[in-house]
């Protein structure tokens, strides 16, 4: 069964058609790469799935819910978490607090519980600190829990973003150019991290320009061009697909 499916999703900005009748599906447990030349509409698709943009037409279904009209926070509650193309942490808050932001939607304590400091609320606060530290440990940042997020090196910031997203207990994790701006060593670490995420039975969907990375971590690859799907298949199929080669290298004129 499909965990996520997009049916004929269309989005235009002014006169520009960013996504044109795009349909695709992601099966549970897969790691899916979304690739395509710049301006193909990949990030727009991600923004539609995560609810920060509403599609003009078409539907998005996630685990049996129609999510295209929901607000982003509700979609996170349903189990889709994301990282941003440009790092979007809370830079003046500590590494730990950044991860706590992801736990928010799995917590219950309200204002009254906080005012009265009910035992339940204190228990929850303790549990949430442990859970957050576990996520930090998972991405290898436990030792830096008390630093302001903005003080971390770039690679650490990207990993912190992933820890924050994982803290929401997602079923689907969406990574927007996770290896962007990373050096080879950091990219290699990221490959291991994505594999570890996958081992936790979390479905992953990612946009990435680093083809070596995509071919290594993804089970399936979806190729977009001009807002539409042009190819879909395993990394090996995509590598040899003439349409994909044309989209990336231009039409075969001079041979």
């Amino acid at each position, binding site marked *: 069964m499909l965990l996520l499916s997009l049916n004929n999703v269309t989005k235009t900005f002014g006169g520009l058609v960013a996504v044109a009748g795009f349909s695709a599906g992601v099966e549970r447990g897969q790691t899916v790469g979304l690739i395509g030349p710049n301006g193909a509409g990949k990030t727009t698709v991600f923004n539609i799935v995560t609810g920060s943009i509403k599609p003009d037409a078409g539907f998005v279904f996630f685990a049996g819910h129609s999510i295209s009209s929901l*607000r*982003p926070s509700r979609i996170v509650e349903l189990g889709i978490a994301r990282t941003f193309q440009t790092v979007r942490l809370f830079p003046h808050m500590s590494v*730990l607090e950044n991860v706590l932001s992801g736990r928010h*939607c799995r917590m219950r304590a309200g204002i009254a519980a906080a*005012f009265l400091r009910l035992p339940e609320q204190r228990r929850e606060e303790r549990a949430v*600190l442990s859970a957050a*530290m576990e996520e930090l440990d998972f991405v290898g940042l436990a030792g830096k829990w008390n630093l302001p997020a903005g*003080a971390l090196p770039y690679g650490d910031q990207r990993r912190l973003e992933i820890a924050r*997203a994982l803290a*929401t207990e997602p079923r689907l994790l969406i990574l927007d150019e996770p290896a962007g701006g990373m050096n080879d060593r950091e990219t290699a670490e990221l490959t291991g991290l994505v594999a570890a995420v996958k081992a936790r039975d979390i479905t992953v969907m990612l946009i990435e320009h680093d083809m070596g990375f995509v071919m290594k971590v993804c089970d399936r690859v979806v190729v977009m061009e001009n807002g539409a799907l042009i190819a879909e298949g395993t990394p090996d199929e995509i590598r040899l697909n003439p349409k994909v080669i044309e989209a990336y290298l231009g039409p075969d004129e001079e041979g």
Partner: protein
Amino acid sequence: MSFSPSVPGPPAGSPPAAPEARLPLPAKAAGVAAFFLIPVVLQKAGLGSAPYWLDVLNTVGLYAILALSLNVILGHAGMFHMGHAAFFAVGAYVTAVLNLDCGWPVLWTLPAAGLAAGLFAAVVAGPIIHLRGDYLLIVTIGIVEIIRIALTNDVFGLTGGPNGRMGIARPTVFGFRITRPQHFFYLIWFSVAVSLVLFRRLELSRFGRALRFIKEDPVAAEGIGINTSRHKLLAFVIGAVWAGFAGTIYAARMRTISPDSFNFSESVLLFTIVILGGSGSRRGVLLGSFLVMGLPELFRGFQESRLLVFGAALVVMMIFRPQGLLPPGPAAYMLPPPWDGAPGAGGARNGAFGGGADEAGGAGGPSPPAGGPAGTGTSGEGR
């Protein structure tokens, strides 16, 4: 002060925030005790001006409660709300009407005043909660003007028009009638202490954190699962409920309330207290209340020009310390086992958060942890 829609913490490269000196518990307790002895000392000193200075302190305390409530909206959630006097007014008038027309004892009207102010906030803030920065500011100014004009025009025949309502009864606590400035001193400053404790708890909770995430980056907060509209609205309602409570105390103290007491400049004063003291910091807001409400009294020697001197002091402040006098320090967490020995636990903070002395207490116990000392000794917060 900056009116850009996002003013999170200090910009990168700015001097680090001043360390919040964390006093040991006994020193705090002693400070609080000494403060609460002020009326006795002033009385014993036999100064003719004692009631006057107590009155000044009472005004400071009342504005501290109001500014602490505004701090939730402006300091934590980062919403530029310059109409707080509107909620204050709703609370005060509800108390006046319930006392004068329905015969309720004054302090019994407290929950009703808070509830009414909170409901009013929910209704007016609902449609404007998505507005950002200066746009929100302008609309909130509109709210306070609408309230003032409605009160002046004797809305529903309850508010008494421009003259307001007079003859509000004295409050009684367990049969004790509160009449004199020193009585009000205890009523007001006890309320300040309760507010400080409760708002501290709120800050260290899921809700308080959510507000800070929203202030720092609303898009990221929504994208990570925090319903930003809901939390911003709740912040408005909480702030308004508290301002409503303050309205009850104000009505009880003044016995006469009129629309003039709730005009735009009151809102500006409250806004100034929060920004000047340190947006988001309880002790900063408390200090701000002393400076903004108390300092002009000390400057009486300058007579006519005292507001000018005060204004100049404000300008100098905002140039040299735009983050406020006592900006909030980093939230401190004590990790539960097995993480309590995590590397970098104490030392990292000092270097990183540029405070230094702040949490220098050590790795073992940066002070207010989530599961830590439950509400003990918090009443001295901020002094």
